[in-house]
């Protein structure tokens, strides 16, 4: 009897510790995000309140409207360009760049990964290691020569400069994860298809690709998020064409509209956050396949 008493006491302590830890997690993740959210729904005069209003007293979507319509409608016909007039075009640019990077990355990286996984060719191991090593190069350090090359190709201040650069900087990760993924798929069915007279392409399309869909989704989602988030190249290779450097430019204005900035930030993180939540399973699997099993 004393034993069961001890056990139930043990269970209660365990519950308490668990919920305390859960509260820590909620606070750690939620606190900064929550504060940005309430700021985005506040009027500017409410911002400096001391102590702060943890729940906005008069929630407003004014800030969001300013960002979405670029403030033109609010200030009237006289000011044609509001503070946030570049935001929506930048978000569209970000979307275009990110989607393009997903596809180019899957095609180029996928075929390279397949080559590394299925063929023994000269120097394959060295080349593979070399490709992986490029992942840890500080991208910052390549910017000057890269700028010169892209200027020769007449790509400076175009979205293509970003698509090209992002695709290539994400390639090592893609090749790494997909190669591991292809390696886990049995070769026998593929070999059988080949003996039955299928071409390599047919074997890939009908046997390997369908089985590799989860890996392809994981890599696609990861490259979308990287492309959406990239800041430094977008800042130096273009005139703030995409979302991250534009956000930075609002931060550096002499008179920062913090509430508008909070709304702009919230709108801009919706795509990567949504994608991450929807594809949660694939992402976690892709991340751990790539990072842990290596």
């Amino acid at each position: 009897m004393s034993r069961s008493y001890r056990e139930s006491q043990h269970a209660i302590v365990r519950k308490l510790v668990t919920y305390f830890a859960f509260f820590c997690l909620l606070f750690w993740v939620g606190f900064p995000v929550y504060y940005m959210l309430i700021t985005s729904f506040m009027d500017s005069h409410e911002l400096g309140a001391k102590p702060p209003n943890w729940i906005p007293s008069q929630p407003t979507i004014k800030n969001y409207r300013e960002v979405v319509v670029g403030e033109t409608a609010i200030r009237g016909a006289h000011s044609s360009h509001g503070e946030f007039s570049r935001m929506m075009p930048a978000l569209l640019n970000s979307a275009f760049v990110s989607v393009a990077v997903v596809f180019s990355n899957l095609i180029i990286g996928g075929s390279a990964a397949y080559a590394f996984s299925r063929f023994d060719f000269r120097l394959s191991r060295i080349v593979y290691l070399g490709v992986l090593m490029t992942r840890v190069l500080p991208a910052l350090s390549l910017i000057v020569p890269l700028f010169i090359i892209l200027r020769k190709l007449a790509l400076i201040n175009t979205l293509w400069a970003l698509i090209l650069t992002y695709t290539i900087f994400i390639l090592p990760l893609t090749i790494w994860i997909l190669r591991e993924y292809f390696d886990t798929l049995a070769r026998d069915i593929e070999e059988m298809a080949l003996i039955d007279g299928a071409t390599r392409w047919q074997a890939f399309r009908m046997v390997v690709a369908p089985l590799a869909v989860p890996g392809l989704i994981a890599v696609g989602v990861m490259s979308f998020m990287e492309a959406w988030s990239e800041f430094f190249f977008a800042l130096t290779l273009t005139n703030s064409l995409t979302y991250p450097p534009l956000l930075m430019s609002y931060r550096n204005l002499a008179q920062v509209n913090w509430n508008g900035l909070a709304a702009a930030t919230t709108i801009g993180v919706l795509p990567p956050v949504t994608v991450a939540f929807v594809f949660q399973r694939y992402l976690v699997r892709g991340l751990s396949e790539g990072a842990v099993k290596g």
Partner: protein
Amino acid sequence: MASAELGKAKAQQRKHWDRKWIPYVLLAPALITIFVIILSPLATTIFYSFSNIDLIRDRTTFVGIDNYIELFSSRLFWKAVEVNLKFAAIVVTVPTLIGLFFALLLVENFMGRSIGRTLLILPWALPWIVVGLLWNWVVNAQFGALNGLLYTLGLIDKYIPFMANEDWALVFTALASAWRQTSFSAILLLAALQTIPEDLYDAAKVDGAGVRARFRFITFAWLRPTLTIVLLYNVVLGFLQFDAVWIMTQGGPGDATMLISVLLYRYTFINFDLGMGAAVSNVLGLITMGVGLIFVRLIYRSHTTYA
């Protein structure tokens, strides 16, 4: 029968013929673009670091290792190294420890676990630049969330200008980076925790192992390879972080948050001293390549053990 034999031989022949050129064709786009966009700029950067580049007169002179000598004897560089080491210490330890804590929590069975798992992904889904902005809101001296919280709780009666203080500035820029990286670390550790077979614990219980022994010999032992990878990822981030720090402090106040990457940016884009900038890049590159090499070696070791 003869025709079947012939067909087989033909297929074999074709397979052989296939193997010769197909991998090169499949690899070509990746290798060519990596060469143009990464390797040739890398070679140029190495060349720059041994040169003095006069942008105004458009003249490049070879100066040997002068840039490196100047760099290693400058106070600024060693300041950046010192700042970066402190920064990296926080970015390595905080995400690893808190990430492990969250992973251990989220493998437990309790109400709210799936909410916890979803929320865990949130910081990792945010761009670095947004992470920097969020933490700007946290530490701001006029309307910051942290000041607000401390004030609401009655712990302070005057808002503290955290980012005007050199030590706090370094701590909070590092914490901002650690915040996002904690999620990444926890995701990896949680994934590894979920693969531990339950019967290992049962067997240990039958053998009379206590909670502590079970943690040490099963949980921790199982997590070790993942922990190593997580640590290395965090080390690399500790040296390559730029975005979040740049939006929060731009290296200031003074040089308090001047990471090596920030120094690199200053030389290249503010002083337009491309030679020195390149020298800093190569030093930074060597540091991360060193870490990367350890990384790749570990991967190959795990291959030979498990494959």
